[in-house]
């Protein structure tokens, strides 16, 4: 397994102005994640987990500090540059699945490949859908699928372009325990097969325990690394 640093932050800050005054969401977060590592970011509600994930993926901009993905400084790029970088190196799995409602399961998996201009989008997507056991459901729309099935489609979509890093935001948050277990198994299996770096945000200690590293956030600060 390669040991190069894939995700790195330096002195990351995020403040927002709210009606109650300035609010600090993240305060000087430094972390580095090596290629192929699985990392859980844990913490209570409001500790800044999702804010950190948003910044790591370049979905939001920090008020201070740096983030780099695969050695590229995210915020030296403009928003379009970051989108391009996401398309090339990053995959996502969300708590609310975030499938496009007007696209079938197969088309949802094809979408990132199509956006990347790949001509083999359909074959690749069919392969990944088979891998997550949803071939029979390929032509179903999200609202015709159960929550677990929707999340499997989302996982297939995330892995289809072989991303370097995969960010998962409470991937089992909307699912019952046993379905959640199966989803997590699938996530880790695919991760192992593709050698992806996995960063997941959760408040589920059981899920966090399956990761190699666990970073705990408390009031916007990285508290400790639990091994």
């Amino acid at each position: 397994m390669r040991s190069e640093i894939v995700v790195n932050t330096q002195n990351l800050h995020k403040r927002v102005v709210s009606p109650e005054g300035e609010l600090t969401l993240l305060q000087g977060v430094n972390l580095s994640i090596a290629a192929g590592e699985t990392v859980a970011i844990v913490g209570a509600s409001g500790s800044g987990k999702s804010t950190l994930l948003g910044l790591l993926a370049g979905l939001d901009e920090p008020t201070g500090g740096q983030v780099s993905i695969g050695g590229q400084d995210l915020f030296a790029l403009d928003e379009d540059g970051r989108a391009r970088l996401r398309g090339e190196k990053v995959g996502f799995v969300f708590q609310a699945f975030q499938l496009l409602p007007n696209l079938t399961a197969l088309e949802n998996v094809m979408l990132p490949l199509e956006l990347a201009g790949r001509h083999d989008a359909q074959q690749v997507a069919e392969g990944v859908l088979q891998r997550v056991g949803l071939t029979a459901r390929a032509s179903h729309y999200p609202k015709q699928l159960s929550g677990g099935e929707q999340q499997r489609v989302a996982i297939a979509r995330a892995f289809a372009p072989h991303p370097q890093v995969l960010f998962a935001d409470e991937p089992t948050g909307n699912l019952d325990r046993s379905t959640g277990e199966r989803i997590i198994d699938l996530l880790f299996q695919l991760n192992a097969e593709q050698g992806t770096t996995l960063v997941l945000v959760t408040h589920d200690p059981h899920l966090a325990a399956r990761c190699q590293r666990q970073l705990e956030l408390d009031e916007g600060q990285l508290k400790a690394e639990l091994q």
Partner: protein
Amino acid sequence: MSGFRLAMRHLHREWRAGELKVLAMALVIAVASVTSVNFFTSRIHQALTGQANDLLGGDLVYLSESGIAEERVARAVELGLRSAKTVEFPTMVLAGEKNQLVALKAASSSYPLLGHNRTAPKLFAVDTEVTGGPVAGTIWGGSRLLTILGVDVGDVITVGNINLKVAAVLTSEPDQSEGVLFNIAPRLLMHADDLPATGLVQPASRVVYRLLLAGDAGAIGQIRQEWEPKLKPGESLHDVQDARPEVRSALTRGENFLALAALVSVLLAGAAVAMATRRFISRHLDSCAIMRCLGAEQAVISRLYLTQMIVLGLLASVVGIAVGYLAQWGLMIFLAPLAGIELPAPSLWPVVLGLVTGMVTLLGFVVPPILQLKNVPTLRVLRRDLGGLQIGALSAYGIGMLAFVALVLFQAQDLKLAAAIIAGLILVVLLLALVSGGLLLLLKPLRKKGGPAWRFGVTNISRRSGHSLIQMIGFGVGLMALLLLAVVRTDLLSEWENRLPADAPNRFLINIQPEQLDGVRQFLRSEGVEPPLLYPMVRARLVEVNGKAVTADDFKTDRAKRLVKREFNLSWAEQVQAGNTVTSGRWWQPEDRGKAFFSVEQGLAKELGLGVGDSLTYNVAGQRFSAEITNLRQVNWESFKANFFVMAPPGLLDGYPVNYITGFYLPAAQHAVLNRMVQQFPNITVLDVATILDQVRGIIEQVIMAVEYVFIFTVLAGLMVMYAAIHATLDDRIHEAAVLRTLGGRRSQLMSSIVLEYAGLGLLSGLVGAITAGAIGMVVAKQVFDLVYVPGPALWLSGMLIGAIGVGVAGTLGTRFVLNQPPLKTLRGM
């Protein structure tokens, strides 16, 4: 994968999901309505013009004082046109001891090309329509001529060096209407082959040669184009537009009605498109955020949606053009047998217009908001509350409005109509927003009253005030269109029809001498006809404008040249004639008697470039006099009453040779009255305008039918807007109903709250729609159609009623399925 293919795949997927149907339907309706109206107006215009050309005896008439060159006939034949020749001149004819000056017309065998002569087999017998003219060796004479000469059918008349037999009594010629008031000599029609033998046409004779042409509109246009610039003095070209102000006015008005209908449909469709786009965008915010997340750059997103919309717009335009074409055929099949018109082929122009309409609607109402989709915050994938996208009203709909204005200017040939519509449009939206906003505020205190369904319904309207406002504007615009249709249908069109009442004058008496006035009145009274008003008339030639000598050559347009060339009929009156309105300057007072003032018809003033303050000098039988224009008048030519271009105060024209004219309605059954009149007053000319009257009436009837048909599109577009408005809040409503049912809301409770909310919205928007429809109807009636319309409370009441019931039912039906779904299914689908 190329961006285009990706966009096409997405288009296919969106279409499959039903996201684009309202948008596409609205575009199709906009394009179809413009296309069908233009297909239709271009064809009906050609057809109706052709019909009116019967009044000329041809589609185009070439007139010369020196003869018809053979090359002209040859060129017409070469272009596939039919032709006929006539020669006209005044001459004396004899019968026994008696002689009479006549207006003689010698016509070739093919005369008349269009329309028909009417003849009677005996003096004062019933006449019938006949084909062609008299054969060589015979003549047809007018009843006045035969009466004066004391001959009848079968007798012989001497014309120049030869004798010709009277074969029939000529009662009407198709082309008599041209210059109808000026041909007062008795009529004689003979065959052109007999003309040389008469020896009447000598080099110095006052002869008018006519070449009548008929056939394909393109070839007629070609001839016009070739000949018009090279006309020499003494030559001219005429078509029906020059000949009959009544017909021209009816045609223009009809086309204005149709253009109005088409433009209102486009406006409505634009509103539906805008609303559908709004919903499309709010439903695609997440998708865009996800695609941004998956690596799509802003330009990729913009291109993706733009390409989809443009392709959709093109497809919808093509479908719309096809629908418009078919609709126009339907209309033609429906109208043609009634009108008995031959259909010219449709032109390609409407296709272009349809395409332009589709694209402008798209670019104006869809593209600006769609382009903002790329700005969706990517973080929305993690935090749903990071809402929406503020679609700037100005940037999104301002462009739409501008695009629409451009479209109106492009489509409406009539600037006044365009301006009325644009001003109306801005006013309507402002008024709707204002009134809707005000009504919503008024509604707030009502929230506390009534049962739970009432409270929930009313609360919903005011709580979602942003959406409610848009919904109300949508319903209001839709209802306004439907009510405007009712206004136009019931009030404006019938007002127009009434302009030409069943008892409009169909007979004119000309050349009544002052000393005959009492005799004529008495005669009519004794025949049981109420004597009509008799108008004095002095024939005069215009010689100077503002002290400068003028001739026909000083004027640019054909019509102006012709107007100046021929004699004016000056008249006088103390009061403004019924049906005339002074549009600038002021009418004279009793103390102005005898003053050198003129009142000029505004169309003539425009044609000759005259205004209040200008001075005109006339020559009456060698005497000159000048007077100043003190006012301009608008004349309702369609009334068929005797009207005058130039009038003076009483006294000014005293001492000049005068005769009188009158027009009145005479039922066909009483035609014999006129025969007796001609016997008693041989110098009076009787003109029968019943044919022209019927023609104009026919045009009005056909156009009214056409307008009603075209309004189907307007109604469809109006329904589309309302449908889009119901859909605008559907997602919220589905979610809300699901939540409420989960919380234990009974089906019947939710149902009655939905019914109440929609009925309430409908009532309010119906009121707003009725007020605006009334206002627009009033302005359009006055400004564009020159009709008077005053909206009444019946309109407002029916607006509220139609709104409450229509929107209540439609809204409930459109939302009802929400209640039939298990709430969990709904919630999971969100």
